[in-house]
């Protein structure tokens, strides 16, 4: 028998997929703009620039909506690590991904309504949503409105450090995307995580003994 838990509400799924679409568009057009070339253009420059601007502004709006809905629904708590037991829990999760998973062990922190993310996801998503994304958005907006950028930062023309920051954050988030997409396959089945992000329902086989947090800490 399968237990079904409704974990991802509609607004969060909408945000997730809209954000994913924006991010993918930004990534492809960003690569095309950064590595712009006459001989081997990936996407025509004007098109890449327009799409990057539209997708960037859309992602900024989506981020504001996420922060707002997180605050209103209490979903922000999902991002908060349990500080007292954070390190041993993080270590256990890393051990699972690095070693135990190859032995067929169960996920150490099964999803519950109260705690959808494992400790590694919590700290990663916290950093991504409340750390990297706002920096990416602010630097991106400064590209759109360079008159608000400082004239000089550390003696360099103001836009250059902003551009480097934007590029680096984009790079880190792209690396995150690669791992994030792979993590889809580390659910109960290959596609169960993907299915959950579409339907909102997390499915789990009852036959497996459910481990509690106490067992792991």
């Amino acid at each position, binding site marked *: 028998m399968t237990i079904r838990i409704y974990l991802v509400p509609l607004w969060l799924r909408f945000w997730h997929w809209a954000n994913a679409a924006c991010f993918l568009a930004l990534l492809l057009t960003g690569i095309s*703009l*950064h*590595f*712009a*070339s*006459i001989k081997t*253009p990936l996407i025509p*420059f*004007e098109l890449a*620039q*327009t799409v990057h601007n539209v997708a960037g502004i859309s992602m900024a709006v989506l981020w504001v909506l996420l922060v707002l809905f997180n605050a209103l629904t209490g979903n922000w708590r999902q991002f908060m690590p349990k500080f007292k037991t954070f390190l041993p829990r993080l270590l256990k999760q890393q051990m699972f*991904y690095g070693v135990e*998973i*190859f*032995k*067929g062990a169960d996920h150490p922190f099964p999803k519950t309504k109260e705690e959808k993310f494992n400790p590694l996801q919590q700290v990663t998503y916290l950093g991504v949503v409340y750390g990297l994304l706002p920096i990416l958005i602010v630097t991106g907006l400064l590209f759109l409105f*360079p008159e608000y950028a400082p004239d000089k930062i550390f*003696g*360099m*023309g103001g*836009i*250059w450090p*902003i*551009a*480097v920051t934007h*590029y*680096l954050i984009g*790079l*880190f988030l*792209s*690396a995150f995307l*690669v*791992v994030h997409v*792979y993590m889809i*396959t580390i659910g109960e089945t290959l596609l169960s995580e993907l299915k959950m992000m579409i339907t909102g329902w997390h499915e789990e086989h009852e036959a497996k003994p459910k481990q509690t947090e106490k067992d792991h800490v």
Partner: protein
Amino acid sequence: MKKHPISMTTLVLGIMTLTGTVILSPHQSAAQANPVRVEVGKEVKECLRCHSMETLGYQDKDTGKLVNLHVPLARFSTSNHGELICTNCHQKGYDVHPHTKKAKAETLYCLDCHDDPKNPKFKDYRFKEVEAEFKKSVHYERHGDKFTCFSCHDPHSFEVAKKKVETAAIIEQDNAMCANCHRSPVRFADITTKRTVPDLEATHEWLPNAQLHWSKVRCVECHTPHDQGNFSHVILKKEQAERNCVVCHNKDSILLTTLYRHRVTTSREKTGFINAAILNDAYIIGATRNQFLDWLSFGIMGAAGGVVFAHALGRWITRKRRQK
């Protein structure tokens, strides 16, 4: 190139200045930042007793147009010609006041001096080639001898780009030359009577962030051919102007051989950070690439892909054990 006529007819305000009401000092604008200001000599000061007056001018009886005779000391003393005395160029008949008719009919031709084979400092500027290029320009094609060097380059204020420290100052000077006619219905009408001055915002509607472009690059970057590896005086028709963004927005940006040419002293192939330092006044999307950052990005993305691949491979190898 035909000589440029200055057919003066009536000096309007010259007499006033002869009364000595204008006090001149070569240091009066010292506060304006330019380290290459030249202290003008006694002969120049004598001329500027009249010609430094902002209102000095006359109405040409033949054309009815106002002719401005003002020579701003502050700009003249920093200009390329700041070291010269007025009579180096303005010769016969200028030693009497008001100047004689003969003097007023003088014609000036830049290459009389600038093509002097005995003067090595002009060699690099290829003035003969510049003249040949100019004759292919839309300005010469449309307006012939009516359009001269002086139509763009004011000999009393022009500074060669490499004298300027800030790129922004080069851009400002060079774009002001274009705007001087292309944003002035009066100046535009002096050159052509066929049309009213076109609306630059409308003709550049296709250009993203047009205002930003105008403040950061020169009009001539797009409005001259860029396949000659150097700055050209062949000003193109708008239909022929560059519209391909990637010509500037790429690693081998043409701006490095035009706008930033005189600053590029180090090989860009080896020096990403130096490249950035060279261009530190203006970040250019796609052009201000940094090799270290590019390597870092390939490294990080490669590491992420590698970890994912290795992990997936491990899961595939152990799949049977896990199914038990």
